[in-house]
């Protein structure tokens, strides 16, 4: 496996416009290279883990990847490192867009050969380990989604070639406490990799000050202007504690800057314009995704930049992403009792700001499903950071385990709403309301993490 040699690594974070072509890229796959042999213990662990996972699956306990991965790591704590060795590894982390970006990156990397990925979003070490254990040995590339709090451990084990840092904002604060601590952890992880001479190439969202701060000391970075509408977690400068100023208008063309120190948005290597990704030399690459919205264009730009690092032609990479029409059930339309429901995921305020743009126009009803399990964060008070006032003029049906919290939020937002804790009944109720007004009933469903999974399960049962 090719790796950036440590001496080429020590270039300072490029200000603006340093040629992308000059950056060494990982060579194409060498199919003649000898296959990496796993230690006996790892092979045994993988065998047992897959059996456990398969048993769990047959008992109807979900995909079995997490419990299988736990079994593997219990038998061989080093299994993740052993399973990753010999593969080209890209890690994708951030608060929002991990699963989609990983999916788009897999599509692009498939042009080089088989790719292993934790496609269903099991993004802690057990899920990642299980995905690698189940992969064919011929899958010499790994596109792995990593929970933002676990990036350090997963990077230490998998020795990634490329790390994609998407964004950081408030999410699951009961677990992560403070967003900027995550940024500090990321920064420390990258510094440690650099000190060990194992610095990955970083593809970073330059529009997010916390990400920029985490990545600024890295040896080699592709700065992507991927956007970040939500700015309320980055108002305090991570560098000096002063105040970050954001351009009032998103299209102002100018980035954020600290008012009190020289920390400012790095010069962009890749930016977005309309439906195109624009390289620093002015090359425009048109992007035609089936996935909707500005945020997915940004995810594509991040994935394209990472794929380019592995030697994939950028235009071809973007073209390969076009066949993705849904990601782990997101963006697809299902029919529930005659109601056509489009499924969208939004699990925090930053995610919601992107989702508002994707909603069908009013008065199309919206079902909003809110849970507060561990994977969602136990504290749904973030609902008050979402400008639900924008849903005035349509019916909202509040559902999920924390529909009571949501109903109170909607009441204070003066949004017409009902509360129906049962997910499928909520979709039916919204559909009945809409159908009576305008013919065939169509609703948008916006769910947070575990409520989305619950809807996916229940819809599958109804089908």
């Amino acid at each position: 496996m090719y790796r950036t040699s440590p001496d080429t690594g020590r270039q300072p974070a490029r200000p603006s416009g340093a040629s992308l072509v000059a950056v060494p890229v990982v060579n194409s796959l060498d199919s003649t290279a000898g296959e990496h042999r796993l230690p006996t213990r790892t092979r045994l662990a993988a065998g047992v883990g897959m059996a456990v996972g398969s048993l769990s699956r047959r008992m109807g306990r979900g995909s079995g990847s997490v419990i299988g991965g736990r079994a593997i790591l219990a038998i061989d704590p080093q299994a993740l490192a052993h399973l990753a060795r010999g593969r080209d590894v890209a890690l994708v982390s951030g608060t929002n867009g991990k699963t989609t970006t990983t999916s788009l990156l897999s599509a692009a990397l498939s042009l080089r050969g088989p790719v292993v990925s934790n496609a269903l979003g099991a993004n802690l070490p057990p899920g990642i380990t299980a995905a690698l254990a189940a992969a064919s040995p011929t899958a010499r590339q790994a596109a792995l989604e990593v929970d933002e709090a676990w990036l350090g451990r997963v990077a230490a084990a998998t020795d990634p070639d490329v790390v994609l840092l998407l964004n950081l904002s408030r999410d699951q604060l009961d677990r992560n406490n403070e967003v900027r601590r995550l940024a500090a952890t990321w920064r420390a992880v990258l510094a440690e990799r650099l000190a060990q001479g194992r610095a990955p190439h970083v593809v970073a969202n330059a529009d997010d000050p916390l990400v920029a701060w985490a990545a600024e000391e890295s040896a080699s970075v592709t700065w992507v202007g991927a956007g970040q509408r939500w700015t309320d977690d980055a108002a305090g400068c991570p560098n000096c504690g002063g105040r970050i100023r954001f351009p009032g208008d998103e299209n102002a063309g100018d980035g954020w800057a600290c008012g009190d120190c020289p920390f400012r948005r790095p010069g962009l290597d890749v930016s977005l314009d309309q439906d195109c990704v624009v390289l620093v030399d002015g090359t425009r690459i048109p992007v035609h995704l089936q996935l909707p919205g500005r945020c997915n264009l940004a995810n594509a730009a991040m994935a394209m930049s990472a794929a380019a690092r592995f030697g994939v032609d950028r235009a071809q990479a973007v073209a390969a992403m076009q066949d993705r029409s849904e990601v782990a059930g997101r963006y697809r339309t299902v029919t529930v009792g005659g109601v056509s429901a489009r499924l969208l995921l939004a699990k925090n305020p930053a995610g919601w700001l992107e989702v508002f743009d994707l909603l069908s126009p009013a008065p199309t009803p919206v079902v909003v499903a809110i849970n507060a399990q561990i994977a969602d964060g136990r504290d749904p008070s973030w609902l008050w950071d979402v400008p639900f006032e924008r849903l005035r003029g349509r019916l909202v049906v509040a559902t999920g385990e924390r529909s009571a919290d949501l109903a109170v939020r909607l009441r204070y937002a003066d949004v017409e709403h009902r509360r129906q804790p049962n997910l499928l009944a909520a979709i039916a109720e919204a559909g009945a309301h809409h159908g009576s007004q305008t013919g065939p009933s169509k609703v948008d469903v916006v769910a947070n993490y575990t409520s989305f999974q619950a809807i996916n399960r229940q819809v599958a049962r109804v089908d």
Partner: protein
Amino acid sequence: MSTSAFRVALVYPDLLGTYGDSGNAVILAQRLRWRGQACEIVEVHAGDAVPDSCDLYVVGGGEDQPQSLAARELNRQRSLHRAVERGAALLAVCAGLQILGRTFVGPDGVEQPGLDLLDCVTVRGRGRRAVGELVVEPAADTGLPVMTGYENHGGVTILSPGAQPLGRVRSGVGNGRDADPNTAAVDGALNGRVWATYMHGPVLARNPAFADGLLGLVTGPLEPLDDQESDALRAERLAAAPTQASGATSRWPDTLVRWTRSRIRVR
């Protein structure tokens, strides 16, 4: 309040707004509007001057570093001090409570001056961060029903003997584990029209009576509203909070017993 709009100042939502506490301002404003009173929310962002002429101020929770920035700024401007002196009401939550005290601990671990509007100090807790449902029995003289919220903080707030807590902790941690173990666990602090608590949620979404109490400090008594949905939420959250032996702060044998019981119940 009849001639001009009631003004609620939301102080530094970009620094002190991590846990949805800006919702408190929305709730206060809506509760007045639904009663036919004009109300305006004045959002004051970091770097802007805080007006001293508003009727009620809301200061929320935030992360360590922005919290320090906010405290420095508010001490420099002193408009919050002038407003309180003039008789404005003030709701402070979590980091907001901490900066209102005499001192608190900054991100570098160094003690920093607070606004000195509450007679308390906040130190760094020795144990685990307090995260979870918080249920508080307000002091009888407040006339408020039991309160529910969600706490998430590492700091421990120690009230001076003269300071009055908002109430006793029924479940959760509140002001903190390191407080005098011989006294009952308490949450928050009250000083005239300055009300402070560790309860997020936001606190006013789950406790409409607390919201009306705050507004009433300025407007006088208010007629009740239909709070069915808030009541449903309150009932749900109160039922969800783990039951905790009241009285002195918990010790490890109690914790062990509770843990064992909870295991048994699960099986």
